[in-house]
Protein backbone atom coordinates (compact mmCIF):
# COMPACT_ATOMS: atom_id res chain seq x y z
CA UNK A 1 0.00 0.00 0.00
CA UNK A 2 1.28 3.41 -0.88
CA UNK A 3 0.27 6.68 -2.39
CA UNK A 4 0.78 6.74 -6.14
CA UNK A 5 3.99 8.46 -7.08
CA UNK A 6 4.14 10.19 -3.77
CA UNK A 7 6.83 12.51 -4.98
CA UNK A 8 4.23 13.82 -7.40
CA UNK A 9 1.75 15.19 -4.93
CA UNK A 10 1.30 18.26 -7.08
CA UNK A 11 0.55 16.10 -10.06
CA UNK A 12 -2.14 14.26 -8.06
CA UNK A 13 -3.70 17.54 -7.24
CA UNK A 14 -3.62 18.66 -10.85
CA UNK A 15 -5.23 15.43 -12.01
CA UNK A 16 -7.98 15.73 -9.42
CA UNK A 17 -8.49 19.39 -10.24
CA UNK A 18 -8.74 18.54 -13.90
CA UNK A 19 -11.27 15.78 -13.18
CA UNK A 20 -13.34 18.26 -11.22
CA UNK A 21 -13.24 20.72 -14.09
CA UNK A 22 -14.35 18.08 -16.56
CA UNK A 23 -17.17 17.04 -14.23
CA UNK A 24 -18.24 20.65 -13.84
CA UNK A 25 -18.21 21.21 -17.58
CA UNK A 26 -20.40 18.13 -18.06
CA UNK A 27 -22.83 19.16 -15.35
CA UNK A 28 -23.04 22.73 -16.66
CA UNK A 29 -23.64 21.67 -20.23
CA UNK A 30 -25.95 18.64 -19.88
CA UNK A 31 -29.05 18.31 -17.73
CA UNK A 32 -29.42 15.17 -15.62
CA UNK A 33 -32.18 14.14 -18.02
CA UNK A 34 -32.87 16.00 -21.29
CA UNK A 35 -36.13 16.61 -23.09
CA UNK A 36 -37.27 14.26 -25.86
CA UNK A 37 -35.10 14.66 -28.94
CA UNK A 38 -35.47 13.17 -32.41
CA UNK A 39 -33.33 10.04 -32.66
CA UNK A 40 -31.72 11.40 -35.79
CA UNK A 41 -29.89 13.94 -33.61
CA UNK A 42 -27.41 11.13 -32.95
CA UNK A 43 -26.14 11.44 -36.51
CA UNK A 44 -24.35 14.67 -35.73
CA UNK A 45 -22.16 12.86 -33.25
CA UNK A 46 -20.96 10.40 -35.87
CA UNK A 47 -20.79 12.79 -38.75
CA UNK A 48 -19.54 11.01 -41.82
CA UNK A 49 -19.05 7.65 -40.11
CA UNK A 50 -20.71 5.16 -42.44
CA UNK A 51 -21.20 2.30 -40.00
CA UNK A 52 -22.86 4.48 -37.39
CA UNK A 53 -24.91 6.49 -39.87
CA UNK A 54 -26.33 3.29 -41.34
CA UNK A 55 -27.08 1.82 -37.92
CA UNK A 56 -28.81 5.00 -36.77
CA UNK A 57 -30.91 4.93 -39.94
CA UNK A 58 -31.97 1.35 -39.13
CA UNK A 59 -32.63 2.18 -35.50
CA UNK A 60 -34.79 5.17 -36.40
CA UNK A 61 -37.23 2.80 -38.08
CA UNK A 62 -38.04 1.43 -34.64
CA UNK A 63 -37.54 4.45 -32.42
CA UNK A 64 -38.42 8.06 -33.10
CA UNK A 65 -37.15 9.73 -29.97
CA UNK A 66 -34.30 9.62 -27.53
CA UNK A 67 -33.89 11.24 -24.12
CA UNK A 68 -30.34 11.86 -23.03
CA UNK A 69 -28.99 11.37 -19.53
CA UNK A 70 -25.92 12.99 -18.04
CA UNK A 71 -22.83 10.84 -18.57
CA UNK A 72 -21.80 10.70 -14.91
CA UNK A 73 -21.56 6.94 -14.37
CA UNK A 74 -25.11 6.87 -12.97
CA UNK A 75 -26.75 6.98 -16.39
CA UNK A 76 -28.12 3.43 -16.40
CA UNK A 77 -29.86 3.82 -13.05
CA UNK A 78 -31.19 7.28 -13.86
CA UNK A 79 -32.37 6.30 -17.33
CA UNK A 80 -34.00 3.13 -16.01
CA UNK A 81 -35.87 4.91 -13.22
CA UNK A 82 -37.05 7.75 -15.45
CA UNK A 83 -38.20 5.47 -18.22
CA UNK A 84 -39.99 3.01 -15.95
CA UNK A 85 -41.78 5.71 -13.96
CA UNK A 86 -42.80 7.34 -17.23
CA UNK A 87 -44.34 4.02 -18.26
CA UNK A 88 -46.07 3.67 -14.89
CA UNK A 89 -47.72 7.07 -15.32
CA UNK A 90 -49.69 5.53 -18.17
CA UNK A 91 -50.51 2.27 -16.41
CA UNK A 92 -52.22 2.65 -13.08
CA UNK A 93 -52.39 -1.07 -12.24
CA UNK A 94 -48.65 -1.50 -12.77
CA UNK A 95 -48.06 1.72 -10.82
CA UNK A 96 -49.99 0.47 -7.79
CA UNK A 97 -48.16 -2.86 -7.88
CA UNK A 98 -44.81 -1.17 -8.12
CA UNK A 99 -45.65 1.11 -5.22
CA UNK A 100 -46.33 -1.90 -3.00
CA UNK A 101 -43.12 -3.59 -4.11
CA UNK A 102 -41.11 -0.42 -3.52
CA UNK A 103 -42.66 0.07 -0.10
CA UNK A 104 -41.71 -3.48 0.91
CA UNK A 105 -38.21 -3.27 -0.53
CA UNK A 106 -36.78 -1.49 2.49
CA UNK A 107 -37.58 -4.26 4.95
CA UNK A 108 -36.13 -6.76 2.54
CA UNK A 109 -32.87 -4.82 2.32
CA UNK A 110 -32.73 -4.54 6.10
CA UNK A 111 -33.18 -8.31 6.34
CA UNK A 112 -30.29 -8.69 3.93
CA UNK A 113 -28.15 -6.77 6.36
CA UNK A 114 -28.20 -3.19 5.05
CA UNK A 115 -28.11 -0.62 7.85
CA UNK A 116 -31.71 0.57 8.20
CA UNK A 117 -30.29 3.78 9.50
CA UNK A 118 -28.86 5.10 6.23
CA UNK A 119 -31.34 3.15 4.12
CA UNK A 120 -34.34 5.01 5.56
CA UNK A 121 -33.43 8.36 4.05
CA UNK A 122 -33.00 6.97 0.57
CA UNK A 123 -36.12 4.85 0.76
CA UNK A 124 -38.19 7.77 2.00
CA UNK A 125 -37.11 10.01 -0.87
CA UNK A 126 -37.58 7.17 -3.34
CA UNK A 127 -41.19 6.71 -2.15
CA UNK A 128 -41.64 10.46 -2.27
CA UNK A 129 -40.71 10.52 -5.93
CA UNK A 130 -43.00 7.58 -6.70
CA UNK A 131 -45.89 9.33 -4.96
CA UNK A 132 -45.25 12.55 -6.83
CA UNK A 133 -45.80 10.81 -10.16
CA UNK A 134 -49.08 9.16 -9.18
CA UNK A 135 -51.19 8.79 -12.33
CA UNK A 136 -54.54 10.17 -11.20
CA UNK A 137 -56.33 10.16 -14.54
CA UNK A 138 -55.30 10.09 -18.16
CA UNK A 139 -55.98 13.80 -18.72
CA UNK A 140 -53.41 14.64 -16.12
CA UNK A 141 -50.73 12.42 -17.68
CA UNK A 142 -48.87 15.27 -19.33
CA UNK A 143 -48.82 17.23 -16.10
CA UNK A 144 -47.48 14.25 -14.16
CA UNK A 145 -44.84 13.65 -16.82
CA UNK A 146 -43.68 17.22 -16.44
CA UNK A 147 -43.48 16.65 -12.71
CA UNK A 148 -41.34 13.56 -13.32
CA UNK A 149 -39.03 15.58 -15.53
CA UNK A 150 -38.69 18.32 -12.93
CA UNK A 151 -38.02 15.87 -10.10
CA UNK A 152 -35.37 14.01 -12.08
CA UNK A 153 -33.52 17.20 -12.83
CA UNK A 154 -33.33 18.15 -9.17
CA UNK A 155 -30.06 16.64 -8.05
CA UNK A 156 -31.35 16.13 -4.49
CA UNK A 157 -34.16 13.84 -5.62
CA UNK A 158 -32.52 12.38 -8.67
CA UNK A 159 -29.38 11.19 -6.89
CA UNK A 160 -31.38 9.73 -4.00
CA UNK A 161 -33.28 7.61 -6.52
CA UNK A 162 -29.97 6.47 -8.03
CA UNK A 163 -28.60 5.52 -4.61
CA UNK A 164 -31.69 3.54 -3.74
CA UNK A 165 -31.63 1.61 -7.01
CA UNK A 166 -27.95 0.88 -6.44
CA UNK A 167 -28.83 -0.58 -3.04
CA UNK A 168 -31.63 -2.71 -4.49
CA UNK A 169 -29.16 -3.98 -7.10
CA UNK A 170 -26.58 -4.72 -4.46
CA UNK A 171 -29.20 -6.51 -2.36
CA UNK A 172 -30.17 -8.74 -5.27
CA UNK A 173 -26.52 -9.64 -5.89
CA UNK A 174 -26.22 -10.65 -2.29
CA UNK A 175 -29.50 -12.55 -2.19
CA UNK A 176 -28.55 -14.65 -5.24
CA UNK A 177 -24.79 -14.54 -4.74
CA UNK A 178 -24.23 -18.08 -6.00
CA UNK A 179 -25.79 -17.21 -9.34
CA UNK A 180 -24.20 -13.78 -9.81
CA UNK A 181 -20.75 -14.94 -8.79
CA UNK A 182 -20.52 -16.58 -12.23
CA UNK A 183 -20.68 -13.20 -13.94
CA UNK A 184 -17.85 -11.66 -12.02
CA UNK A 185 -14.48 -11.64 -13.67
CA UNK A 186 -11.22 -11.92 -11.80
CA UNK A 187 -10.78 -12.57 -8.12
CA UNK A 188 -13.56 -10.29 -6.91
CA UNK A 189 -15.93 -11.78 -4.37
CA UNK A 190 -19.58 -10.75 -4.65
CA UNK A 191 -19.09 -8.81 -1.44
CA UNK A 192 -16.18 -6.81 -2.87
CA UNK A 193 -17.96 -6.28 -6.15
CA UNK A 194 -21.06 -4.91 -4.41
CA UNK A 195 -19.08 -2.52 -2.27
CA UNK A 196 -16.72 -1.37 -5.00
CA UNK A 197 -18.72 -1.46 -8.23
CA UNK A 198 -22.40 -1.20 -7.29
CA UNK A 199 -22.99 0.82 -4.13
CA UNK A 200 -20.68 3.80 -4.76
CA UNK A 201 -22.10 6.61 -6.92
CA UNK A 202 -20.67 7.25 -10.39
CA UNK A 203 -19.55 3.63 -10.94
CA UNK A 204 -20.69 2.49 -14.36
CA UNK A 205 -23.14 -0.35 -14.87
CA UNK A 206 -22.50 -3.60 -16.63
CA UNK A 207 -24.83 -6.47 -17.62
CA UNK A 208 -24.69 -7.86 -14.12
CA UNK A 209 -26.07 -4.61 -12.64
CA UNK A 210 -28.87 -4.56 -15.21
CA UNK A 211 -29.86 -8.19 -14.71
CA UNK A 212 -29.88 -7.87 -10.93
CA UNK A 213 -31.97 -4.68 -10.90
CA UNK A 214 -34.47 -5.87 -13.52
CA UNK A 215 -34.91 -9.17 -11.73
CA UNK A 216 -35.30 -7.53 -8.34
CA UNK A 217 -38.02 -5.20 -9.61
CA UNK A 218 -39.55 -7.56 -12.18
CA UNK A 219 -39.13 -5.05 -14.99
CA UNK A 220 -38.16 -6.03 -18.55
CA UNK A 221 -35.56 -3.85 -20.24
CA UNK A 222 -34.48 -3.84 -23.87
CA UNK A 223 -31.05 -2.42 -24.59
CA UNK A 224 -30.08 -1.50 -28.16
CA UNK A 225 -26.32 -1.64 -28.64
CA UNK A 226 -25.01 1.01 -30.99
CA UNK A 227 -21.36 0.25 -31.59
CA UNK A 228 -18.89 -0.49 -34.32
CA UNK A 229 -19.77 -4.20 -34.34
CA UNK A 230 -20.44 -6.13 -37.52
CA UNK A 231 -23.51 -5.73 -39.74
CA UNK A 232 -25.78 -2.76 -40.33
CA UNK A 233 -28.25 -3.67 -37.60
CA UNK A 234 -28.11 -2.51 -34.03
CA UNK A 235 -28.15 -5.56 -31.76
CA UNK A 236 -30.81 -5.63 -29.07
CA UNK A 237 -30.75 -7.57 -25.84
CA UNK A 238 -33.59 -8.13 -23.39
CA UNK A 239 -33.08 -8.31 -19.63
CA UNK A 240 -34.10 -10.63 -18.09
CA UNK A 241 -34.02 -12.81 -21.20
CA UNK A 242 -37.43 -13.47 -22.70
CA UNK A 243 -39.18 -10.74 -20.72
CA UNK A 244 -41.51 -8.19 -22.23
CA UNK A 245 -39.66 -4.87 -22.24
CA UNK A 246 -41.18 -1.85 -20.53
CA UNK A 247 -37.99 0.19 -20.59
CA UNK A 248 -36.02 0.84 -23.76
CA UNK A 249 -32.45 2.04 -23.60
CA UNK A 250 -29.72 2.70 -26.09
CA UNK A 251 -26.17 1.80 -25.13
CA UNK A 252 -23.16 3.37 -26.70
CA UNK A 253 -19.81 2.33 -25.22
CA UNK A 254 -19.83 3.75 -21.71
CA UNK A 255 -23.26 5.35 -21.79
CA UNK A 256 -27.04 4.71 -21.60
CA UNK A 257 -29.85 6.95 -22.88
CA UNK A 258 -33.63 6.42 -23.06
CA UNK A 259 -35.38 5.34 -26.27
CA UNK A 260 -39.02 5.72 -27.34
CA UNK A 261 -40.38 2.92 -29.57
CA UNK A 262 -42.79 3.87 -32.32
Amino acid at each position, binding site marked *: *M*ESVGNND*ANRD*ELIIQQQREIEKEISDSTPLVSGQLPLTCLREEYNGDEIFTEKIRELSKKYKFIRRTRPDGNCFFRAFAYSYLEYLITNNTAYQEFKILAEASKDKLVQLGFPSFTLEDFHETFMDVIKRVNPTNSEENEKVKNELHTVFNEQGYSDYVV*VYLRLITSGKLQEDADFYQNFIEGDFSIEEFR*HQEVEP*MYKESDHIHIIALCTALGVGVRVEYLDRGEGDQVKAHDFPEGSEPKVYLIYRPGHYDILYPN
Partner: protein
Amino acid sequence: MSSMSPSERRLQKELMSLIKEPPQGVTVDTESVHQNLSEWKINIKGSEGTLYEGEDFQLLFKFNNKYPFESPEVTFIGTNIPVHPHVYSNGHICLSILTEDWSPALSVQAVCLSIASMLSSCREKKRPPDNTLYVKTCNKNPKKTKWWYHDDSV
Protein backbone atom coordinates in the same frame (compact mmCIF):
# COMPACT_ATOMS: atom_id res chain seq x y z
CA MET B 1 -35.08 21.51 12.01
CA SER B 2 -36.67 22.55 8.73
CA SER B 3 -34.00 25.15 8.04
CA MET B 4 -31.34 22.45 7.95
CA SER B 5 -29.87 21.32 4.67
CA PRO B 6 -30.26 17.61 3.77
CA SER B 7 -26.62 17.09 4.60
CA GLU B 8 -27.00 18.71 8.03
CA ARG B 9 -30.12 16.68 8.73
CA ARG B 10 -28.28 13.51 7.90
CA LEU B 11 -25.31 14.49 10.10
CA GLN B 12 -27.60 15.35 12.98
CA LYS B 13 -29.28 11.97 12.67
CA GLU B 14 -25.94 10.15 12.57
CA LEU B 15 -24.72 12.09 15.57
CA MET B 16 -27.74 11.19 17.70
CA SER B 17 -27.37 7.53 16.86
CA LEU B 18 -23.64 7.54 17.53
CA ILE B 19 -24.17 9.14 20.93
CA LYS B 20 -27.00 6.78 21.81
CA GLU B 21 -25.57 3.53 20.50
CA PRO B 22 -21.84 3.89 19.92
CA PRO B 23 -19.91 0.86 18.62
CA GLN B 24 -17.56 -0.63 21.19
CA GLY B 25 -14.51 1.53 21.84
CA VAL B 26 -15.87 4.52 19.92
CA THR B 27 -16.93 7.81 21.53
CA VAL B 28 -17.83 11.14 19.95
CA ASP B 29 -16.31 14.26 21.43
CA THR B 30 -19.68 16.01 21.67
CA GLU B 31 -18.03 19.26 22.73
CA SER B 32 -16.27 19.51 19.36
CA VAL B 33 -19.43 18.68 17.41
CA HIS B 34 -21.61 21.21 19.18
CA GLN B 35 -19.22 23.92 18.11
CA ASN B 36 -19.27 22.84 14.51
CA LEU B 37 -21.46 20.16 12.95
CA SER B 38 -19.12 19.78 9.98
CA GLU B 39 -16.09 18.74 12.07
CA TRP B 40 -16.26 15.86 14.50
CA LYS B 41 -13.61 14.48 16.78
CA ILE B 42 -14.06 10.83 17.58
CA ASN B 43 -12.09 8.84 20.12
CA ILE B 44 -11.27 5.28 19.33
CA LYS B 45 -9.73 2.69 21.64
CA GLY B 46 -7.32 -0.01 20.54
CA SER B 47 -9.22 -3.29 21.00
CA GLU B 48 -8.22 -5.88 23.55
CA GLY B 49 -6.10 -8.70 22.21
CA THR B 50 -4.73 -6.60 19.34
CA LEU B 51 -1.40 -4.80 18.87
CA TYR B 52 -3.09 -1.54 19.88
CA GLU B 53 -4.59 -2.72 23.17
CA GLY B 54 -4.44 0.04 25.76
CA GLU B 55 -3.83 2.82 23.22
CA ASP B 56 -6.19 5.73 22.60
CA PHE B 57 -6.50 7.44 19.25
CA GLN B 58 -8.44 10.38 17.93
CA LEU B 59 -10.01 10.77 14.49
CA LEU B 60 -11.06 14.01 12.86
CA PHE B 61 -14.02 13.83 10.44
CA LYS B 62 -14.64 16.78 8.13
CA PHE B 63 -17.85 16.93 6.10
CA ASN B 64 -18.74 19.21 3.23
CA ASN B 65 -22.25 20.12 2.10
CA LYS B 66 -22.30 17.29 -0.44
CA TYR B 67 -22.21 14.68 2.31
CA PRO B 68 -23.31 11.83 2.08
CA PHE B 69 -22.76 11.89 -1.68
CA GLU B 70 -19.15 12.79 -1.07
CA SER B 71 -17.06 11.00 1.51
CA PRO B 72 -15.93 12.70 4.70
CA GLU B 73 -12.28 13.63 5.04
CA VAL B 74 -10.93 11.44 7.84
CA THR B 75 -7.53 11.65 9.54
CA PHE B 76 -5.94 10.61 12.79
CA ILE B 77 -5.03 13.65 14.91
CA GLY B 78 -3.39 14.28 18.25
CA THR B 79 -0.21 12.97 19.79
CA ASN B 80 -0.79 9.27 19.25
CA ILE B 81 -1.03 8.33 15.58
CA PRO B 82 -1.26 4.53 15.27
CA VAL B 83 1.81 2.89 13.79
CA HIS B 84 0.19 0.89 11.00
CA PRO B 85 1.10 0.04 7.37
CA HIS B 86 -1.93 2.05 6.12
CA VAL B 87 -1.53 5.06 8.37
CA TYR B 88 1.00 7.81 7.64
CA SER B 89 2.67 9.57 10.50
CA ASN B 90 0.80 12.78 9.61
CA GLY B 91 -2.48 10.96 10.30
CA HIS B 92 -3.52 10.29 6.71
CA ILE B 93 -5.22 6.93 6.21
CA CYS B 94 -5.13 4.81 3.09
CA LEU B 95 -8.57 3.20 3.08
CA SER B 96 -10.58 2.81 -0.11
CA ILE B 97 -14.00 3.58 1.40
CA LEU B 98 -12.69 7.07 2.21
CA THR B 99 -12.28 7.89 -1.46
CA GLU B 100 -13.30 5.86 -4.48
CA ASP B 101 -15.29 3.13 -2.74
CA TRP B 102 -17.32 5.54 -0.64
CA SER B 103 -21.07 4.99 -0.85
CA PRO B 104 -23.81 7.27 0.51
CA ALA B 105 -25.17 4.21 2.33
CA LEU B 106 -22.04 4.18 4.49
CA SER B 107 -21.89 6.34 7.61
CA VAL B 108 -19.57 7.73 10.25
CA GLN B 109 -20.23 4.60 12.23
CA ALA B 110 -19.34 2.36 9.28
CA VAL B 111 -16.09 4.28 8.77
CA CYS B 112 -15.18 3.95 12.47
CA LEU B 113 -15.84 0.21 12.35
CA SER B 114 -13.71 -0.12 9.21
CA ILE B 115 -10.83 1.74 10.81
CA ALA B 116 -11.15 -0.29 14.01
CA SER B 117 -11.08 -3.50 12.01
CA MET B 118 -8.10 -2.26 9.99
CA LEU B 119 -6.22 -1.74 13.25
CA SER B 120 -7.35 -5.03 14.76
CA SER B 121 -6.18 -7.12 11.83
CA CYS B 122 -2.67 -5.64 11.86
CA ARG B 123 0.11 -8.15 12.48
CA GLU B 124 3.12 -5.87 12.58
CA LYS B 125 3.35 -2.29 13.73
CA LYS B 126 5.12 -0.35 11.03
CA ARG B 127 4.67 2.75 8.90
CA PRO B 128 3.88 2.61 5.17
CA PRO B 129 7.09 2.09 3.18
CA ASP B 130 6.83 5.53 1.54
CA ASN B 131 5.97 7.37 4.73
CA THR B 132 8.84 9.87 4.86
CA LEU B 133 8.46 11.06 1.31
CA TYR B 134 4.67 11.16 1.41
CA VAL B 135 4.46 13.13 4.62
CA LYS B 136 6.95 15.64 3.25
CA THR B 137 5.21 16.23 -0.06
CA CYS B 138 1.49 15.47 0.32
CA ASN B 139 -1.44 17.88 0.35
CA LYS B 140 -3.02 18.64 3.71
CA ASN B 141 -6.21 16.99 2.51
CA PRO B 142 -5.77 13.20 2.08
CA LYS B 143 -8.62 13.16 -0.44
CA LYS B 144 -6.30 15.04 -2.77
CA THR B 145 -3.97 12.09 -2.94
CA LYS B 146 -4.58 9.57 -5.69
CA TRP B 147 -4.28 6.45 -3.59
CA TRP B 148 -3.23 3.16 -5.01
CA TYR B 149 -4.95 0.41 -3.06
CA HIS B 150 -3.25 -2.83 -3.73
CA ASP B 151 -3.16 -4.73 -0.55
CA ASP B 152 -6.28 -5.03 1.52
CA SER B 153 -4.98 -7.94 3.52
CA VAL B 154 -2.62 -5.92 5.71
